[in-house]
């Protein structure tokens, strides 16, 4: 996986993401190891333990029907996880040029 998509600082927290194999749509690792289409359902992990979580999820990829598992650093200051990079905010909330495709109607639509 591209390091650019996987950068993290020590001490922060992250969520885990992938694309669904069948339709390519973005998913987030939620409670109990399920994958959700919504980032607000994602389980938040401390960066200290995240590599192990990513490893486990990667090994389960085929069984879970996902591809390209990696971790996404989020900001510390909100209740809904909001990724720190524009790229991951676009993945989480949908393409900015099509507001009607927003993944969370009540989520922050402005990714900037």
């Amino acid at each position, binding site marked *: 996986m591209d390091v650019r998509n996987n950068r993290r600082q020590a001490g922060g927290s992250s969520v885990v993401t992938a694309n669904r194999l069948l339709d390519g749509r973005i998913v987030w690792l939620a409670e109990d190891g399920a994958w959700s289409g919504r980032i607000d359902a994602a389980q938040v992990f401390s960066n200290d333990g995240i590599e192990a979580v990513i490893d486990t999820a990667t090994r389960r990829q085929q069984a879970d029907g996902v*591809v390209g598992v990696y971790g996404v650093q989020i900001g510390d200051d909100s209740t809904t996880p909001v990724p720190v990079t524009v790229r991951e905010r*676009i993945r989480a909330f949908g393409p900015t040029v099509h507001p009607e495709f927003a993944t969370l109607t009540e989520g922050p639509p402005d990714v900037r």
Partner: protein
Amino acid sequence: MSAEILATPDTGAAPVGHYAYDQVDRAFLHDRVEQFRDQVARRLSGALSEDEFKPLRLMNGLYLQLHAYMLRVAIPYGILDSRQMRELAHIARTYDRDYGHFTTRQNIQFNWIRLEDTPDILARLAAVDMHAIQTSGNCIRNITCDQFAGAAVDELLDPRVHAEILRQWSTLHPEFSFLPRKFKIAISGSPNDRVAARFHDIGLVAKPGRHGTVFDVFVGGGMGRTPVVGVHLRDNLPEEDLLAYLEAMVRVYNEYGRRDNIYKARIKILVQALSAEGYREKVDAEFAAMDRARYRLPPETVAAIRARFGTPVLDAPSDAADRLAEARRTDALFDRWVRTNTHPHRAAGYISAVVSLKPDGGIPGDATSAQIDAIADIADRFSFGEIRISHMQNIVLGHVRQDQLHALWQELGRAGLASANIGLIGDIIACPGLDYCSLANARSIPIAQKLSARFANPALQERIGDLQIKISGCINACGHHHAGHIGILGVDKKGEEFFQLTLGGSAGNDAAIGQILGPALPEDATVDAIAHLVDAYLVHRTDGERFLDTYRRLGAALFKDAVYALA
């Protein structure tokens, strides 16, 4: 389809503007679809891992992008017929989110495709003689062509027959499926370069010679991380040697091109490393040693391929031009659109119309299913059912009767397709950028939208004149920013988007690579900066001078001040 060119006699009526497939082509496509159906099934069952499957899906044009799979469908030399166009609309409506994106490589991309639907989509495409082969991977990609081919008054020779010959030669060429890197060929038959021949791995310009068709050959141009203007490799290559010489060119690349570093793998790097002279020597040696008879392109083969192209019967009434002139006199809006969105035709009473896919504030190159259908209908009514995709991400209807142009324009208006901005500041090229692309640093589309909204006023656009803005979301340069009069490149600074401006690029006969103006700017400042650049140009230009000419005459300092001195 192999290295041999097939040209079996045709039975049915050939579509105007492109080659009519035969049963061999159709059987081949059918087999490819079924093969992929099986591969998808094996991927879903887990029999194939993602690492094993990825190259297979890429060979069928299926990428995994940010939000979903993206399917890139080939449109050979950018020409399709209304039946194929309607199938694209159907796919957009049924399998995607009701729109498609026309690209600078004259293809179409669908952004929201499901893996499990892809075999069915490919089967639908195959039913109308279309596919997604060679739209990805290190092979010879879709061959691009002048959007006014076979129509333009300045054309010396219709290059599409040779584009088709090259398509057949390159399709699944046994030696060239695993080149060091992707390979892009463009061909034109006009002395005015509208295909960016000097920015392709190989650029060809066809013209009549003393004993038949000959070609000027450019090599080693390209965008990307290392932009290079191609070098002129040779003049007057005889038609019968076209395939042999190209074969030699690609063989030398295949043998000496670097495979250890993807950033140094394109032919442009090889040509630089060997020098143009050194590369030419190796090609000539290969050419001299090879089995030339095997690759000889005899006039009969060219004629047989030509016979499989439908040709339009051009018989406009003698008063067609007068009736167009009359319509222009009485309808100022139409007159403006004709000024910007048409191109002179070789036949009396005809004209080529350009349908802008750049509405004010819109997404460059996007069209809804309804618009794609509308264009198919309009093409049937006004242009022999023939449709061309331009590398500027617009659509061209090649052969329109001048007395019918006003009616055509009204139909376009009803479909929301009558923007009058071709070649002007609103005619922006933008790559998908960070809104879709997994390689992107920054978003390209929102800047294009803001600029096109800011300069929406048609009188202002006409006053500014010829100005090409090209935007790429990363250094891969899919949006051709290096060749923009004003280029915009997205860069990533700690996860935030910034934009670098380049000035002075050009894709035409005067091909040049834009030079970086100064430090990268945030998005809104970038839009303002371009407004300042335009203001500076309007103040300093002399009569009839394009932005590019003013920049070349006065240099960067003035423009640099206009952007950075204010801060």
